[in-house]
């Protein structure tokens, strides 16, 4: 694949509104769980989330909904970080969500919104969050929704638009806000836990929902270097597949197909992958399927160390893949794999597996895998590398 540079990042999450705060939170985990601060959830068995602080919400740009605020803030951050917008750089935007639009419906439905029925239908349209103030998109725009793979899928699809010449730069990422509907949904699925999220741990109990947004600015490496843009990391390959099996249960073959595609697309040898930023939601079935799929894709090559950042950040749904991608960008820069928090005993059923724990691990190779999977059997995997040495050409 033609190398794609990440030239800008914007983040709004439970750990704060900067990449520095995010990285610090990953390296030094603390228990961020609370009941949902916005509204009491006493009707549900589990009210245990990792939320953006209300003071941080208040600091975001004024907007009709929280989804609008997340989009506006992170798009603006990513563009500014990349030195955009510029008149000579046609820029488009692919974001992803499962809750934008639904947030408005929920507010109206339960009477939490001052706006009653009869307001604009546009308020229910998730794509309107792309109309962030100051954005005059010159390239393609779309609001994607592929469940919890969305935040990685949006950058993967944005690459197609770049390589086809439809845009010179693409903003891409994922966002989701905590809603009662999602709390209800994960309780209904019996996967929400009142405990900490502990991927790969023998005692893991399930998912802790969270919220947030990450937006990236992507350009071909050649174009980024030609305009003198900073290169934070380079996407070398991507894999996209659908299990075409059960809607909720992951399928080893489907996940493995996406991993193999990404590796082959990148041209990076398996032994040169230094770590895997797993999807690892903290449920036994998901973790086990993911590790089995990695083993199938790596064949005789030993698996590199893995980490699961949902132990720290919870599961921000459509933003999950984007959070993992950002963690990988920062890890490649720091040459350190952040830990999977709260890991006690690695589940022996997973077989021999190196899970980054404690203070994390040194990152000794040049490339990492980033994975995101979602209901519906949606799988997306990227191969990411650090920025090229100064003066190096793509």
């Amino acid at each position, binding site marked *: 694949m033609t190398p794609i540079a990440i030239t800008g990042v914007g983040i709004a999450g439970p750990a704060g509104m900067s990449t520095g705060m995010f990285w610090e939170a990953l390296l030094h985990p603390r228990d961020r769980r609370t009941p949902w601060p916005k509204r009491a959830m006493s009707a549900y068995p589990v009210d245990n989330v990792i939320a953006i602080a209300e003071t941080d919400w208040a600091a975001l740009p004024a907007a009709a909904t929280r989804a609008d605020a997340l989009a506006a803030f992170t798009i603006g951050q990513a563009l500014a970080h990349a030195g955009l917008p510029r008149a000579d750089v046609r820029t488009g935007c692919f974001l992803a969500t499962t809750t934008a639009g639904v947030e408005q419906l929920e507010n109206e439905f339960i009477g939490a919104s001052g706006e009653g029925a009869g307001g604009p239908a*546009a308020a229910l349209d998730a794509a309107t969050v792309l109309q962030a103030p100051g954005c005059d998109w010159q390239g393609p725009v779309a609001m994607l929704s*592929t469940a919890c793979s969305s935040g990685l*899928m949006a950058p993967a699809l944005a690459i197609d638009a770049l390589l086809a010449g439809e845009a010179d730069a693409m903003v891409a990422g994922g966002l989701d806000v905590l809603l009662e509907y999602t709390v209800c949904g994960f309780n209904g699925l019996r996967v929400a836990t009142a405990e900490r999220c502990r991927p790969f741990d023998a005692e893991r109990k399930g998912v802790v929902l969270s919220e947030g947004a990450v937006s990236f600015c992507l350009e071909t490496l050649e174009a980024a270097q030609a305009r003198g843009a900073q290169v934070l990391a380079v996407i070398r390959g991507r894999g996209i597949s659908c299990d075409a099996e059960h809607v909720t249960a992951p399928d080893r073959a489907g996940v493995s197909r996406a991993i193999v595609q990404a590796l082959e697309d990148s041209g990076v040898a398996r032994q040169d992958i230094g770590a895997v930023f797993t999807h690892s939601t903290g449920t036994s079935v998901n973790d086990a399927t993911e590790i089995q799929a990695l083993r199938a894709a790596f064949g005789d090559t030993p698996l590199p160390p893995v980490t699961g950042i949902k132990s720290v950040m919870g599961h921000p749904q459509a933003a999950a893949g984007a959070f993992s991608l950002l963690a990988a960008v920062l890890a490649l820069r720091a040459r350190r794999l952040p830990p999977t928090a709260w890991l006690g005993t690695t589940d022996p059923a997973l077989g021999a597996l190196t899970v980054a724990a404690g203070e994390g691990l040194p990152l000794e190779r040049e490339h990492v895998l980033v994975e995101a999977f979602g209901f519906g059997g949606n799988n997306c995997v990227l191969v990411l590398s650090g920025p090229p040495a100064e003066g190096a050409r793509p």
Partner: protein
Amino acid sequence: MTLRDPIDILGFACASSPLDAGMPPELLLPERRAKKVGALPDKARFVLQTVKACLPPQEALEAIGRERIGVSLGTVLGSMDAAEQCLSTVRSEGFKGVTPSWYANGLPNATAAIVASVHGFQGPNLTLLGHASGLEALVMACRQIAAGRVDAMLAGGFDWPSAWQLDRLQRSTDMRGASGVHAGAGLVWLSRRTVRDEPPYGQVIGWSQSWRGADNRSLAAAAAQGWPDAEPVIHETACGAAGQADHLAAGAPLQLVRDVLMHGRSGRHAVVARGFGTAAICLLIQRPD
């Protein structure tokens, strides 16, 4: 964006209903369960019934290979049914009334995922949100084919509003002009030229998207790239267009199917969808002689 190798449209299907007397049963897949999915949501049965009329024969699917076939669908309403169902049930019956499958089967991408499960399509499975997302889903599908990731895509848009959503939309300040909000599904079967063995109903020759749709830049850009010699027939949908039934995300794909593929003259056509705000998207179609 002008394609060097046009993408063939080898199948199409559409369905719509004003919902005044509910959804006509003939528009729903008769089967209520599927082997790998379990109980099928009604919205999925509606789309699956439309899909049946759009797909090529089984042997053609096998020849392509299921890993090389994807799905790309657009919807406005996304997971709003599931949200309504969860919130109203918890308030009326408590959490004990919530069914485990509601959330996953109600996610925006659930319908596309169920289509893939039922038909075994293992390529990219994409769902796009927004009023213009039916046409955006077609364009996204074409990108996948043009990039060489797949050989065929089932693509289009669908929506089926609940009673609450119907009432909410029809009262909306920006949709009051429409004659009604209808359920709809519009689908096409897109295929790389190299795998076709039959004449296409039409060919996608390009597309363009613009955030400033109101100034027609989208169409102008498309015309500049693709059509030096002839004016296209323009087919336009916009949300809440006065006097017209609004089919939400199905609107533009329905127009493509009905006005271009079923009844359009030979030559060039532009299907334009304008979403809320200023965005516009234009798909360029060549109808054969």
